[in-house]
């Protein structure tokens, strides 16, 4: 009987499988409890957290797209204090695996303050620093579209972090490799990519944008090829581990993302249209590996360029 090995390792953190629900599509896990046992997941990347509580943008902040969706939620979250005191301990009651804290800010000082608040939480295994939210002004993506700003946030966060730091990158740039290199040189332990692609929809009857915020982030299977390309480019240029994400929907997508160079994979929009997406992908993974003659996921090598 062929036994498949699903384990992967991120900067010394052992994951029993590479599947991680992506930040912003999983809340703090509670909403998925009626559907499955969270302990089957490799890790959980929890909702993006800022220094202060945020409501986010006005509604409508969701729109349908071909092969995906737009969101302009705008980092709604209860703030670092409530996440540390309430959300993470509550998650710990039902889930004992690694937690990835996802951190956002509107200034270097806010990123640092938020990291200081969460880095010491015993549940937190990795810090994922979001410099790529497309839905907030003055911050978020502004730090992720300029190599110098990305490096500055990376250095500032690294000074106070006691856990591996993964910078989450935006695809809304001309050269993602330049941003990735800047983060790596500034001391990032790893990278997460990609965040959503900036897009819009128009209501033809009303002749107005569908989203109250006009533009929003596009996610879902439609962005998968873009995500693969960027992961492949980045992993060809830096030596630190990359968590790949963007439209991953099936077990075959997971393997394809790892062949692009990712060490682990996040599942985002798929969770929202099918709350059982992660367990279903996990169940299908060994069969797909066997078909391809893959015994251990950690042995998958990045495909070369043609």
């Amino acid at each position: 009987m062929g036994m498949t090995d699903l384990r992967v390792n991120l900067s010394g953190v052992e994951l029993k499988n590479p599947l991680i629900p992506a930040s912003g599509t999983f809340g703090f896990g509670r909403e998925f409890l009626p559907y499955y046992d969270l302990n089957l997941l490799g890790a959980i990347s929890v909702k993006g957290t800022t220094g202060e509580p945020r409501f986010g943008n006005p509604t409508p902040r969701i729109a349908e797209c071909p092969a995906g969706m737009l969101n302009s939620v705008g980092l709604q979250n209860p703030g670092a204090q409530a996440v540390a005191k309430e959300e993470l301990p509550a998650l710990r009651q039902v889930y004992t695996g690694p937690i990835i804290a996802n951190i956002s800010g509107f200034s270097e000082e806010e990123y640092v303050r938020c990291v200081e608040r969460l880095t010491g939480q015993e549940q937190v295994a990795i810090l994922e620093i979001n410099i790529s939210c497309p839905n907030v002004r003055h911050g978020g993506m502004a730090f992720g579209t300029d190599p110098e700003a990305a490096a500055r946030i990376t250095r500032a966060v690294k000074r106070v972090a006691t856990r591996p730091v993964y910078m989450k990158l935006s695809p809304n740039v001309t050269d993602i490799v330049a941003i990735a290199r800047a983060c790596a040189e500034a001391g990032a332990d790893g990278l997460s990519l990609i965040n959503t692609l900036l897009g819009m929809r128009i209501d033809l009857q009303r002749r107005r944008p569908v989203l109250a915020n006009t533009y929003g982030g596009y996610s879902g299977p439609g962005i998968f090829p873009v995500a693969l390309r960027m992961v492949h480019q980045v992993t060809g240029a830096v030596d630190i581990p990359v968590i790949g994400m963007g439209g991953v929907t099936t077990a075959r997508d997971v393997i394809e993302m790892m062949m692009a160079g990712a060490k682990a994979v996040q599942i985002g929009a798929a969770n929202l249209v099918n709350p059982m997406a992660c367990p279903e992908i996990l169940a299908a993974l060994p069969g797909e590996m066997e078909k391809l003659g893959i015994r251990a996921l950690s042995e998958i090598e990045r495909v070369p360029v043609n």
Partner: protein
Amino acid sequence: MNYEITENRALTASVHSMRLRGDTGSLTRPGQFVQVALPDFYLRRPISVCEWDRESLRLVYKVVGQGTAAMAEMKPGACLDLLPGLGNGFDTGACGEKPLLVGGGVGLPPLLGLCRALLAQGKKPLVLAGFGTAAEAFLLEDFRALGVPVTVTTMDGSLGLRGLVTDALGDLDYDDVLACGPLPMLKALWRCTGGRGQYSLEERMGCGFGACMGCSVQTAAGSMRVCKEGPVFRGEVLPWA
């Protein structure tokens, strides 16, 4: 979860009634909704449950876009994937003995299941339904079959009283308000009836089960997700209260 369509027919030019067979165990209160997965569309469509029994449910929905248009074309025998039993629904225990159920247009369907539940508890609901014109009216016979008083208003006076539902309030004897309909109707009703009651809101949703934060509204009691803490809100914690 898979459900088999047993009936799908037009009630008016744009409103359709679909009956489905499948597990309804997760439906616990009238006013809850289901998320319908449609072939070729990425996001599910949230549709309120009109009424249900142990093995079937009924969705009465309006064609408002391409997704619901595709839903209206589906034939009996076909299967639909639903996430059932979402949202909080109306609290029938907390409402008065003579509640007024106010439905505007396609806000009316969940009030049918609500009416049944109230009658089963020995309460004496009365119904107030508002439409644009007589040709847009639907479900009135279903309510009358339950033996409850039904008052109808239309904007053009082609059926029942001419005007808005709020124009009919003066002649009715009720002790509570349970409502579902367009936002301007809910706001006007809330003002006319002193801010009490339970109101079902609508918002564009991503997931429908509380994960994406797409449908949040700000209220006096903090931010609430229409899909999770709602869609039914008490009069005191509505976004405009």
